[in-house]
């Protein structure tokens, strides 16, 4: 019968896959025991480098989801040079990102003019309670440790960009 070959070949595929899984192991990862490393560029969580932040509000204003809340006040700091005038600096009071709203678009990281925001590939910060997804500036600063170096670029890329 002409019917047989297609059906039999299909059985061969499943059997072959089974044998491959026996031999080479599965394609899945036993998650809590072993973990895959996300790529360097992976957008996992946003880290805040507090020293660089000038509270310019750009990130908060360019966020499409309105999920960055910044409060700051001005303060007098000792002058940089001897005998100079005391400088006015912006002191960050509050820097919250609500990850329940965040769409992980990365616009805030991109618009930041002073390199205060970075992407970290870290992804394990799920919470049972939705309000805990609001990360404040201490928590955001903790992510800084996990921020990797930017990857090397592919051949032919314009090297002028950092």
């Amino acid at each position, binding site marked *: 019968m002409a019917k047989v070959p297609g059906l039999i070949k299909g059985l061969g595929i499943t059997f072959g896959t089974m044998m491959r899984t026996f031999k080479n192991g599965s394609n899945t990862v036993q998650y809590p025991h072993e973990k895959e490393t*996300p790529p360097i560029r992976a957008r996992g969580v946003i880290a805040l480098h507090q020293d660089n932040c000038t509270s310019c509000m750009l990130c908060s204003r360019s966020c499409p989801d309105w999920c960055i809340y910044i409060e700051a006040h001005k303060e007098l700091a000792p002058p940089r040079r001897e005998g100079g005038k005391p400088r006015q600096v912006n002191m960050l009071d509050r820097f919250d990102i609500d990850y329940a709203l965040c769409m992980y*678009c990365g616009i805030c990281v991109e618009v930041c003019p002073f390199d205060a925001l970075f992407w970290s590939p870290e992804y394990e910060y799920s919470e049972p309670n939705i309000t805990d997804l609001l990360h404040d500036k201490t928590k955001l600063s903790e992510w800084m440790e996990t921020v990797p170096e930017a990857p090397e670029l592919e051949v032919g890329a*314009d090297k002028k960009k950092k």
Partner: protein
Amino acid sequence: MTILNDPVSAKLGNRQQLSYIASQAADARLNVELETEGMTLNIGPQHPATHGTLRIIARLDGEQVVWAEPSCGYMHRGYEKLTEVRTFPQVTTLVNRIDWLGSFANEVPFILAAEKLMGVEAPPRAQWIRTILFELSRIANVSLFLGDLGVQLGAITPVFLAFRDREYVLNLIESATGGRFHPNFDRIGGLKDDLPAGWIDETKVVMKKLRNFCDEIETLLFGNEIFQSRTRGIGVIPRDVALQYGLSGANLRASGVDWDLRRDQDIALAYNKVDFKVWTHPDGDSFARCWIRLQETREATLIVDKLLDGIPSGPVMAKVPKIIKVPEGEAWVSTENPLGEMGYYVVSRGDLGPFRVKIRSASFNNISITPWLLRGVYVPDIITILASLYFILGDIDR
């Protein structure tokens, strides 16, 4: 329906003619008093075969559908309205989520429309990388379709094979763009960043795996006689009906229309730099639609391979102002997305954000044919037809 006069049937092939007669018969049944009391079956909104939350109200006579009507809107997010309160760079994060399986492809036409209004053009390298990522998202999207097709028809293994191999593509997209599902990598005037080192070689390896996956699916599913008997001659769409309903993509090409926006329009992507075959099928039935998608996936891997060999060097970003204001005007750009023709009609008022964006998504048109198509089929065929039309709820409801 008045759209079908009898001359239509004369133009059809044999198989199409049979199904056409069947649909006419179903029409006639509607007009006579039904002897038995029918049953209204609600397929969805929570149903495994609806890829989300599409609801199909079907009037059944036994297992035969007398009348069926999809009801959508369970996932309507109002993107057209949302774009009006966003700036141009912010819109891409939204449109990522329209067709969530091939997200990158959603950004491209919008960015191209904005670039058209601004009169800027992305540098060649950016165009090539865009095209490569575009095809990768096509592969990521359609390979899942190929697996899902099996599940819809009762074979459980293909979907796992699809997820297995799709993962490689997603890893590629993630390592290049940082976003696994929602890349948001396109910027007006180019791309956010260049590719990371080693990406090209990795992609070539993955493309081989994907071709292997296509072969596997072809044997496991398309060569299977049960699959063929389930899909051949089911849900036949003749050419002119397909055009009237504005079907696009593989659905249109399966009805014998040789039209692929990648090849047939001048657009700032690198498609005209490579040779590729546009697959068509004369039958217009479910099998043809699925088969075309399989071939297109394979073709896409070949396109990616060819493009990888010739990426020009240079910058990936044209000179654009930091704060983007798009000049006043209207522009329409559409591209051949995984699901079909996806286009944006962007009206700008010289403001930071668009004044009006009409999102022409492929699935909305593709699924609008179902009331016509589902008459007279059996309940299992509803699933086959819906699966073969291939819609994504986010793409219907926007």
